[in-house]
């Protein structure tokens, strides 16, 4: 049975402000590698491929940690189609996104997903999330984020 709740989303959001290389994310990747470092490296490569058409975002992926990480202001849960809910499919949809200097999500794409049907609703939801922007050197900056949407 599929059960995606705001609760699970917010759990996942714990990591939204962390670096993409943070080992805690490695566990969220379905194709988890043997070690956290390996998984992080694998994830870096995936993200770079995912945003290859947007060099500006790839540059952000590689940026150093901000002084003040993103803070979540509000979230919206994804609305999956009923047919998908009935199918009993579950897993983790990993969504990569970018938050601008105003705290708005300006782009989001799925990194990993157990079923394509989850992708569009997950991206649509993440695009509606709001954040307090990250700060670096006293200024709001655009940063990357990553969130696992857990469906169970």
């Amino acid at each position, binding site marked *: 049975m599929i059960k995606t709740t705001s*609760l*699970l989303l917010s759990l996942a959001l714990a990591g939204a402000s962390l670096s993409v290389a943070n080992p805690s994310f490695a566990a969220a990747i379905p194709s988890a590698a043997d070690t956290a470092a390996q998984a992080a490296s694998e994830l870096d490569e995936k993200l770079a491929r995912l945003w290859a058409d947007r060099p500006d975002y790839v540059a952000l992926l590689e940026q150093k940690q901000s002084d003040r990480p993103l803070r979540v202001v*509000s979230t919206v849960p994804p609305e999956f189609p009923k047919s998908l809910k009935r199918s009993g499919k579950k897993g983790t949809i990993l969504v990569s996104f970018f938050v601008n200097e105003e705290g708005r999500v300006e782009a989001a794409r799925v990194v990993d997903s157990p079923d394509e049907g989850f992708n569009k609703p997950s991206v649509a939801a993440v695009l509606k999330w709001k954040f307090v922007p990250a700060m670096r050197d006293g200024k709001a900056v655009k940063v990357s984020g990553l969130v696992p949407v857990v469906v169970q």
Partner: protein
Amino acid sequence: MPFAVFPKRTAFSFAALLVTSAALAGAGRDPAVTFRDDAFTLVLDNGIVALEIAKENGAVVHFAYRGKSLLSGPAYLDWQSDGNHHFSAVRCRIVTDPATNGGDLAEIAIEQSGKGQRPAFDVAQHFVLRRGESGCHVFAVFHHASNYPAASIDQSRWVLRVDESVFDFINVDDQRRAVMPPGTTPVRTLDPKEAMQFTEGPWQGRITDKYHFFAEAGDHFVHGWSGTKSNLGLWLIDGSREDHNGGPTKQHNTAHFGGVLLKILTCVHYGAHAVEIPKGMEWTKVYGPWLLYANSGGTPDALWADAKRQAEEQRRAWPFSWMHHPHYPDRMQRGEVRGRITVHEGSPAMLPGAWVGLAAASPDWQQQSNGYQFWGHMDADGTFAIPNVRAGTYTLYAFAPGLADEFRRDEVTVAAGRSLELGELAWRPPHFGRLLWQVGIPDRTAREFRYGDNHRRWGLWRHYATDFPQGVNFRIGSSRERTDWNYAQVTVNDRGQWRGTAWDVEFEAPDHPMTGTATLRLAIASAHAAQLVVSLNGHKLDGFDLSTDNAMARAGIRGQYTLRDVPFKASRLRPGRNVLTLEQQTGRNMLPNVMYDSLQLYLDEQRRFETFRDTPRFVIGANARNAGEDND
């Protein structure tokens, strides 16, 4: 079995000594409170805890204790009032700038006007940070202007989600403390859907349900999370229960699976009523202040002990001298009520658990949500003192284990700064003659019956069909409550059809023809969608539709208490063996049920039987009505 993972503590841990209670530190040495208005957030910091509040929606987007972030997402206030609402278009206001008081205190307010539209309430949430305290005080103010449309609030909560990489141990009360599986642990939902069964990992097969973590409000002042590895704790602490709806027996949500931590402001669960404000009424209610408290060091036991100490401290300090709001009277604006309640023709001493309180005259205090209630325990001799009562006129209520009735005295006027001595108050429960028999103990719960002592478990209702294949047939004199009377009169599934059940009580009446009046007192701890028909020796005495509180499905052992008196001609009693039948007639699904608190049969051979229209059949409980009238 959600509480199977209890840590065993056999000796006092030295770590307990290491718990940090920053509040105990000398105020003079603590850093000043600072306030900063960022572009997106308001930032409060006292050097111990720091919080950031989003200017967009008032959510606490960051709460840190000594630099360590403790929340996994935004903490927000919501209220169900014709739909679910959060702050959306708020005004942020600095109420007290710490720069004006040498850094002793900062208060900010997040405010939103209902403007008479949906939702028709003005809502404000205040955050108060004081120098040297290891936490932040929070309160909410709901206001309804007289020109707003009629409106109601079913529920209001402050919802936090703790960071589960820091916190893995839930603390509800002394009996309910355990390691919790991480919120990402796979589950399948059960019926009711709030119950979830873990499908993988070391918790596989176990069940968790938010209703297993509800607590009765009367004696509950603290709950929270701690970390077995982080040695940190995060707690919600109430200094008073005056703001809670439904009185001391009302059950409220506390914390549950998924790192959820809750402060319930008002809630209709277990049959309580919504806040209901008619058009034309000017209404304001202050909820709180409560304390979001953080501590560190030591084991979960030590953190819990420290949190309880902090709760005691908050209760002693109530009403808070630092709190300044026009709708929060200070100590001098409140009064006290003292007295001694003595029970006549009943048990000579108050048993532990006896409550006395002040609330509005109507409806039943269990159903009150608009105002404030002030409850406390009575001593064994019935002596009581209720301090810090907001000035006004109340009804004094009392109820106690062993007594099915409740005491009330109307028109008790509390004046600011005064202690009202009521002296000795005689509680004279009605007299129905000689007690022939009794099943259960009148204490407003079904705790003494089968499973009643361990009721916060999923699916208890399913045991009935195998435990009682012939139904309950309770023989006065030989049957035992703990084994022979189920905690709830449930429905059974008979070849795909749900149907109600009939329970018998067999008893011996005096061995001679009887005259006068017999009275069956039916004390009901909870009921849901139940139609109850009471018969004696196959002849119907009475019937009721009972209140709907859903306590059984929500793992409670009580909901809305009601007391029914069923008087009948004593001549209906046969000399010798009699059978009283309680038939719950609603089928439908697994939800309809009756939880009995106690049954008492009295016989008064001197008293002339009068028709029920002259006799109060309905004694306590506001939302029940009679289903049938088959009496003479």
